């Protein structure tokens, strides 16, 4: 099939269906309502189930049940709705249930606004829920990448029996771009059969229990260590990033998702003015890529994290740079979108200072 024009919210729904997710649970919230509308129409056509839950709290627990029963299951929401899911996400991680969660971020805190934001970075990458757990967090910069990454997200979830989050924003959800839904690369991951799923004892060997409770501290610690092993593996294997014009860059911006596109505009503007600027674009926010920093820390004079937040990913940049070079921050928030010319002004500022 050729490339078609599609809204991000609809494309991600279709991509999930193509990735084999026939179950969707969710609760309306702007700016991701098109996902539910799309799934409500499409899933019955493919023999799946769309269910509008009574709340995000219920929805995430339906995902727990459905994922635990062995299905590929998608849930989407936006910032406040994702906050309501934190207990559920912690349970899903603790009980090792695969699921894909999409956060189409808006401005916060509180009710905030409905325009695009990236201020849920901490929540996504550090675990807004309680306890030690991590999810792979993927941040596509285009609708095509979102579609491609959806397949990947479900595969990662199944491979590690762990939730995976796709962190998008209102812009990504609302915009239309050309997308090719058919040439999505299937991964060659060797996915384990879901022998652990609760499908009824008559349908598998022994008795299956989906659970995150362990009252014996020694056993719970063991469980945490097992999880840690898994997280370490994910951290090793699931790093994804793009380096853009970093080779001889004096200053390297770090940005993800739609902000990265804006930074690419900025880089073009900068190069017209003879400023050597590059971009490290983490695609996996957790695990956060270390390598591109190690490869650039000698040459670059400074880094700048550009976000639609008051400064969250910048901590990961600092951790990755680890004192080798100064790390700066530029952010817009509340639904305001950074503009290339303002970013460039900031960069000139920094380079002035750095020289």
């Amino acid at each position, binding site marked *: 099939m050729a*490339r*078609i*024009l599609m809204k991000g919210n609809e494309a991600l729904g279709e991509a999930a269906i193509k990735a084999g997710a026939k179950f969707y649970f969710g609760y309306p919230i*702007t*700016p991701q309502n098109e996902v539910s509308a799309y799934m409500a129409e499409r899933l019955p056509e493919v023999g799946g189930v769309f269910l509008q839950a009574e709340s995000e709290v219920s929805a995430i627990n339906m995902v727990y049940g459905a994922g635990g029963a062995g299905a590929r299951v998608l849930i989407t929401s936006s910032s406040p709705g994702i906050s309501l899911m934190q207990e559920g996400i912690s349970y899903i991680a603790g009980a090792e249930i695969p699921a894909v969660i999409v956060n189409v971020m808006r401005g916060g805190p509180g009710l905030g606004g*409905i*325009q695009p934001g990236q201020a849920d970075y901490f929540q996504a990458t550090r675990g807004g829920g309680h306890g030690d757990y991590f999810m792979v967090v993927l941040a596509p910069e285009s609708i095509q990448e979102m579609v491609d990454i959806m397949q990947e997200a479900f595969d990662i979830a199944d491979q590690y029996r762990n939730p995976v989050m796709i962190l998008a924003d*209102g*812009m990504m959800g*609302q*915009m*239309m*771009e*050309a997308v090719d839904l058919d040439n999505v690369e299937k991964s060659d991951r060797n996915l384990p059969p879901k022998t652990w799923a609760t499908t009824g004892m008559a349908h598998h060997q022994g008795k299956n229990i989906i659970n995150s409770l362990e009252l014996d501290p020694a056993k719970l610690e063991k469980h945490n260590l097992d999880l840690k092993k898994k997280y370490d593996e994910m951290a090793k294997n699931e790093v994804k990033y793009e380096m853009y014009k970093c080779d001889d860059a004096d200053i390297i911006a770090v940005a993800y998702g*739609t902000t990265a*596109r*804006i930074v*690419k*505009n900025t880089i*073009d503007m900068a190069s017209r003015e003879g400023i050597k600027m590059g971009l490290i674009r983490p695609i996996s926010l957790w695990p956060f890529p270390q390598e591109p920093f190690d490869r650039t820390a000698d040459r670059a004079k400074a880094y700048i994290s550009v976000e639609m937040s008051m400064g969250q990913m910048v901590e990961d940049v600092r951790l990755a740079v680890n004192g080798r070079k100064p790390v700066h921050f530029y952010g817009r928030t509340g639904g305001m*979108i950074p*503009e*290339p*010319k303002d970013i460039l002004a900031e960069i000139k500022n920094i380079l002035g200072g750095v020289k």
Partner: protein
Amino acid sequence: MEERVIMAGFGGQGLMTIGQLLAYAGLEEDKNVSWMPSYGPEQRGGTANCHVIVSDGPVGSPVISEATGVIVMNRPSLEKFESYLIQGGVLVIDSTLIDVKASRTDVEAIYVPADEMANEMGNSKMANMIMLGAYVQKTGVVKLESLFNALRHVWGNTAKERFVEPNIEAIKKGAGLIGELVK
């Protein structure tokens, strides 16, 4: 080539539709395109706008801060978006609905009595297509034929099929103005 156009007016005037149509037309020509709507409660009755980019290279931010073109169908939109235009940018104004002139002199302002023309054609809902026709003819961002194909592609085999030909006519009407209007 990168055309960055903002289309704005009241909700219901069909600006979202012509924005999508333009993006589709770009796609027909294998260009890179993006369409980004305004969204939120202000849409209701209030103003609505979308940002469309048609580019040979990859599209950066889908949100336009420096527009090559602006199409406006009400006065608040003119006031708001005029300043987004780059020097020499194209500003298409529905002169039936907006009774003032552009205040900038460094842009190319085109006054299209689109609402009036649409009413003459028997359907005021097509004013948007007239505006689009004029804009496309003026800028050459895509071929008119690509717009027509896009219309056929998207509305063909749907409930809107019967609107395809009238809309093509409206686009042509708008396009036809350009020779006349811009001396």
